[in-house]
């Protein structure tokens, strides 16, 4: 139980995917123009992540290591298509809003990353806890970012006007530049908060979160050593 909670909770803060690990940036940036979209995308990711973790973990003994990546991709793609169909059937406007980012969930490095790093090595229950935790963390982050951008960019939250008439929406916030800047500033604030804490503990300040997706980690070094 303890272990389950540990695997579940790490995705909520310690390894919060978009902020702490800086993973899965495309949907984070693209679909967070409104809180609603962020939430919807997050739900889709929760579903795919949890289920793909579950399936990969179930099949982990059957999948030959050589083609494991191909199998992970096939499994998550299947789930993505399923989510796509269900979304079309039950929430078409959301499907329209999210556009090609729904099919692109399949190349979200979080999904593959969790399959490779966790589900392939752990029993189904833990894998589900991990996927659920990560997914919820991802959803919360997306919703938060979406709310922020929606409020700033349109003066509404989940489509309801929340700012007074005096408020002139910063339209740029719901467009691409706003997405980048908003996320950048948020990351910086988080690091700042962490640094304040570290300072209290007498530790040296650290720099902002580093982008370090499993597959990209080594490339700077690789290129250097050529």
């Amino acid at each position, binding site marked *: 139980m303890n272990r389950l909670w540990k695997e579940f909770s790490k995705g909520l803060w310690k390894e919060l995917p978009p902020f702490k690990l800086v993973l899965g940036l495309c949907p984070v940036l693209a679909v967070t123009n409104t809180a609603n979209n962020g939430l919807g995308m997050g739900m889709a990711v929760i579903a795919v992540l949890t289920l793909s973790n579950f399936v990969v973990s179930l099949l982990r003994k059957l999948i030959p290591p050589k083609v494991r990546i191909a*199998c992970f991709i096939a499994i998550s793609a299947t789930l993505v298509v*399923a989510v796509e169909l269900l979304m*079309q059937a039950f929430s078409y*406007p959301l499907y329209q809003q999210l556009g090609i980012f729904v099919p692109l969930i399949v190349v979200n490095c979080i999904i593959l990353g969790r399959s490779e790093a966790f589900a392939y090595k752990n029993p189904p229950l833990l894998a589900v806890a991990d996927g659920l935790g990560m997914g919820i963390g991802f959803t919360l982050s997306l919703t938060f970012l979406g709310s922020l951008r929606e409020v700033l960019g349109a003066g509404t939250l989940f489509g309801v006007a929340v700012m007074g008439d005096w408020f002139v929406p910063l339209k740029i916030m719901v467009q691409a530049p706003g997405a980048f800047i908003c996320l950048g500033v948020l990351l910086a604030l988080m690091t700042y908060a962490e640094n304040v804490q570290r300072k209290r503990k007498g530790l040296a300040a650290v720099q902002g979160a580093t982008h370090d997706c499993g597959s990209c980690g080594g490339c700077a070094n690789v290129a250097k050593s050529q």
Partner: protein
Amino acid sequence: MKEEIKMIVVLSLICGLSGISLAALKQVTAPAIEEQVLTYVQAPAINSVLSDHDNNPIKDRKSFDVDGRTVMVFPAIHDGKLTGVAFETSGKGYGGKIGVMVGFSLADGVLSGIGITTMKETPGLGSRVADLSYTSQFSGHAADSVKLKKDGGDIQAVAGATISSGGTVSAIQNAIGIFNALKNSFGKGWS
């Protein structure tokens, strides 16, 4: 070799199973999806081009065959009487296909209105074919000779966007052709 065969088999099996399960899911969800697409994509256009009805045109839709193509026709029914129909056709615009929902009034055989469903025209130029100032020209227009002014008709093209205007007009002409071909079958459909 054995390794490779195992690899091929596992991968193909996973793909095959995915295909089967997805197809099943697709079949289950197909009606719901169609409903949703119509509700969210077509409904606004349909409602704007059909003037006078108390039914749900989407629910009452029917398919007709014209020259080997299937056309989804949405009826406007008032007091149990079919008053008009609407269906979608398309023409080639500047940026690709322009989808036009064309509504006909059965009583006098005129266009009851048009609505742009899909298009990828240049914003601010071609996209103005969706503006009311352009589309309203068609409301009540006789369903025989829809032409742009430069072709000798009476439709005022959107300034600077002749291709987009031409696209819509050709779509409407197309629709008129279909309407004329099916005119007599409509009555049987909803009576």
